[in-house]
């Protein structure tokens, strides 16, 4: 349902949308059912000449069971939501598949800095490519991201990945994603971080190997030979 508005472009986007859909359909079903029962009762037991109101004490089994069975059903649905939610949470937030590439994401009031690995495929080396408000990643590649904040709380949110992760000053938070489709999409801050919070959008460019190589060759730090870029990253293909 959500994918009709925001594409699913990570391996776990579908799982997260499934949980949303599950909650939506269960709550919508119950909402319609309960409202229907309410309105039916209002109509069925409307004021009628010569009929006195009946006071139910809840001691008789039949009316009591109607209420308690509905409550039990709610519990079953709650457990179903919890099971799928915890499974998805575990997959996205608890497991950490081995990385093919690692990026560093630095949030500040009110901008993002993305440190990409250069041709050597490693961050924190001389050929890193640092960019403001632009993240370039390879499609179908397992990425680890390391989140840092220079000042206050932020939240690294990539809607097409269904990814949201708080960025907490003083900590380096590691997470992962694997993009399943290419294109240019939004990154946003999803934690109120000051007056410019609404103005710190960035863009993610999910690229094929050829596109990524072309981008890398354009932005290599001076001193790194342009043709180096094809060595390690392409070798992963």
């Amino acid at each position: 349902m959500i994918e009709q508005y925001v594409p699913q472009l990570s391996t776990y986007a579908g799982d997260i949308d499934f949980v949303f859909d599950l909650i939506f359909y269960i709550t919508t079903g119950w909402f319609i059912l309960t409202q229907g029962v309410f309105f039916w009762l209002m109509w069925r037991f409307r004021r009628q000449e010569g009929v006195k109101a009946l006071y139910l004490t809840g001691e008789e089994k039949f009316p009591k069971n109607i209420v308690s069975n509905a409550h039990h059903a709610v519990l079953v649905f709650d457990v179903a939501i919890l099971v799928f939610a915890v499974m998805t949470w575990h997959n996205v937030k608890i497991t950490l598949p081995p990385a093919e590439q690692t990026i560093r994401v630095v949030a500040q009031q009110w901008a993002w800095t993305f440190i990409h690995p250069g041709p050597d495929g490693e961050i924190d080396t001389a050929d890193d490519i640092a960019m403001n408000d632009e993240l370039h990643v390879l499609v179908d590649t397992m990425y680890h991201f390391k989140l840092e904040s220079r000042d206050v709380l932020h939240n690294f949110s990539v809607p097409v990945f269904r990814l949201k992760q708080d960025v907490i000053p003083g900590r380096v938070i590691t997470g992962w994603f694997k993009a399943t489709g290419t294109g240019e999409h939004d990154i946003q801050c999803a934690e109120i971080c000051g007056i410019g919070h609404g103005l710190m959008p960035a863009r993610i460019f999910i690229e094929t190997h050829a596109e990524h190589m072309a981008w890398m060759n354009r932005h290599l730090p001076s001193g790194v030979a342009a043709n180096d870029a094809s060595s390690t990253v392409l070798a992963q293909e």
Partner: protein
Amino acid sequence: MGLSGGAFAEGDLERGEKLYGLCSQCHGVEGEGVPLSLAPSIAGLPAWYVESQLKKFYGGIRGRHPDDIGGMRMRPMTLYFNRPDTRDADFAAVSAYVASLEPKYPEPLLSGGDPEKGQASYSLCIACHGADGLGNEALQAPPIVQISDWYALTQLKNYKNGIRGRDPRDSAGATMWPMAMTLEDEQAMKDVIAYIETLRGSN
């Protein structure tokens, strides 16, 4: 006051004052600057300079280098001006308002600068910023006599390290880069900043 330059219409100032409400969050109600917010004193800067910098921030010419912490904080603020039909007029209005503010001379926060040594380095700055530090619009050189010292140091370092003024569209910034290269270390920068502060009395 000698710092303010350029004519502005009354309507611009009213609009500018309203728009300045956003700027005041960091730069202070009177444009006095707030070091904790990385916001320098801007009160009384000439409208042409404020406007040119706003447009540079907006266009991503300034404030997009990943090491320009203060600049990356300023750039999003210019993105508030997101209506193409009013953007230029709004930039002009808020610049006129900033220019109309009484210039502030922030208390020095740096220590260890030697104005006598700095005077020698300043001889190079005179060509554009003037012997009195009041700047020269024709050369795109803003007044620096009222500059916050911590901000001056940051900007000199930014120019020297290619964090500011290296965008191909930033011709005025490109002039500052080789100038900053002549200051060999932080001490030399502090010296020249200390000298600039001595110019305040002469204005």
